[in-house]
């Protein structure tokens, strides 16, 4: 093993597998906090029926009742317990977020891979298509789709997926293009390996971790997009999501009634999920890209030591 004799801290220790990378990420405190938040919300979503203290379809308290010991977050305009709404709403919000991200990742990953690997006219065509999707205004598209086919959650998932895949495609394409030029890929080609083998065994493992980071960050955007669309009334009004909860509250004059507990909790929930995604996603990205490390720009200088017990050396 050669000594560290370079000043350049961007020399990175090569990862021998996904596990080493994961272990590295989990050492970061911000990553742990982010992951903890996400896990908490996912568990909350899974066990929503068990966790909700009240049924979300039945009134259990007065209109806009303020928070009390029986109803921790008060009630909404229909007398339905707010805490149960937030917990149940989380389930659909998260599902929509994850589903939309899955759509985005599949489309974006596939297109990015093809584009980056084959280059040439395939790249040009696919990137032009990506550009067209980039300029589509989200709201307009959603309005059109709900006007034509009616508002529903699956439409929301599709729309968000269609809007978000472009980001993933670009990230994947950049990484694939760079891996493509590496000597070991050229060597695999020289051996006679076919495209499929090279993509699966050599390119994807290098793209995978970056794709995961991108996915986590995309989930944040998807959850936010769903909330925003629901808030604007473009989602299925019968579904219980954080967005629709806030939308109902706004619609039914919670603001003038001063019932902050009808609006704020759902909003905080969305913010927390997004924060969790970013903390975790960014840590993965930082771990994968050594150039983002800025240790070598540290204002700390090297340290002086005194030698103990050394006599004058013969010259």
């Amino acid at each position: 093993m050669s000594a560290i004799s370079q000043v350049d801290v961007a020399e990175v220790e090569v990862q021998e597998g996904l596990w080493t990378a994961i272990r590295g990420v989990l050492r970061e405190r911000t990553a742990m906090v982010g992951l903890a938040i996400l896990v908490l919300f996912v568990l909350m979503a899974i066990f929503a029926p068990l966790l909700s203290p009240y049924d979300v379809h039945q009134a259990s308290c007065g209109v806009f009742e303020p928070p009390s010991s029986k109803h921790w977050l008060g009630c909404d305009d229909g007398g339905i317990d707010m805490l149960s709404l937030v917990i149940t709403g989380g389930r659909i919000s998260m599902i929509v977020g994850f589903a939309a991200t899955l759509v985005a990742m599949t489309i974006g990953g596939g297109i990015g891979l093809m584009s980056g690997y084959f280059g040439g006219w395939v790249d040009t065509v696919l990137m032009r298509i990506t550009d067209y999707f980039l300029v589509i205004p989200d709201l307009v598209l959603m309005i059109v789709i709900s006007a034509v086919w009616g508002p529903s959650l699956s439409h929301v998932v599709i729309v968000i997926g269609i809007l978000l895949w472009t980001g993933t495609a670009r990230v994947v394409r950049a990484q694939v293009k760079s891996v493509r030029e590496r000597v070991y890929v050229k060597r695999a080609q020289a051996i006679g390996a076919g495209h499929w083998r090279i993509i699966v065994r050599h390119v994807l493992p290098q793209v995978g971790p970056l794709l995961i980071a991108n996915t986590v960050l995309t989930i944040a955007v998807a959850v936010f997009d769903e909330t925003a669309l629901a808030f604007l009334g473009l989602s299925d009004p019968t579904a219980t999501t954080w967005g629709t909860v806030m939308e109902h509250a706004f619609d039914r004059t919670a603001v003038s009634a001063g019932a902050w507990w009808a609006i704020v909790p759902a909003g905080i929930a969305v913010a927390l999920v997004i924060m969790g995604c970013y903390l975790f996603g960014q840590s993965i990205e930082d771990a994968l890209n050594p150039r983002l490390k800025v240790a070598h720009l540290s204002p700390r200088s090297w340290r002086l030591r005194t030698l103990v017990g050394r006599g004058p050396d013969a010259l």
Partner: protein
Amino acid sequence: MSLLEIRDLHVWFDLPGGRELHAVQGVDLTLEPGQRLGLVGESGSGKTTTALTIMGLLPSSASAAGRVAVRGEDLMPGGENGFRPHRWTDVAMVFQGAMNAFNPVRTVGWQIAEPMQAHGTASGAAARARVGELLELVGIPAAAAARFPHEFSGGMRQRAAIAMALACDPKVLLADEPTTALDVMVQAQILELLGHLCDELGLALLLVTHDLAVVAQTCEDVAVMYAGEIVERGPIDELYHSPAHPYTRALFAATPDLYGDEAVGSIPGAPPDLSSPVIGCAYRPRCPVAFEPCVEQRPDLLALSGTRVAACHLVHGSRAQA
């Protein structure tokens, strides 16, 4: 009092998990004006770290001890603040890969003038004139100062890097692998330039390289480094014709000679891992003539004859048991 004196230099790097890498283990060097010393070693020998320490350019993960004196003044106790006033004005460096380290959005002339601005030695028209002078000195037309780095070839950029190093009129020039990425013809041009500059400006040169032949071309003296320490030092002529240390001998044997007929040798094994303390002689596992004292006792760098020193038990006779 020497122009540059390094005495008992030690450098450690922090490793993850609380361990340390003892990259430089007690190096002694002196340089007089006009002297050309080659510092030779393979990867991991600590030669680049030694050069960077002379400039005080270690990362925050490093700690150092020892004496680094320019004209008798020890710079180490002051840390970064001790080194900065002397950096570039007394001791300048051409870094490894310097030709690729130019700022692509600034003209070459601007970049060569930058150290002058930073140290306040010249500015404005005076700086521009000096830039022109420096470019001519390294063999580039002065008008090229207005060009950008990408318009220069590799060889020209390396010359520009040398010009930049000379901007504040230093007395000592450190060159770390100045010709490694260059073609042989350009390499010859750069080495000729370095020799010429030393003669004309009275510069002292420390040439850090892995290539013994390059040192033989350019320098009179050479210090061979292995595992963080100097194992032999002296005039290169003597080292070539009668190498004392087995590593020196093996290194010459591994350097193919164009017209020679001897088989080219290689050294089995690898240098020791410097994150753990070395017991006895660091070269012993690979040494064909190691004997009993080499196992436990670390050989000291002792005088052989004239200015020659070597760190080998065999050469000096085993030390008497105390």
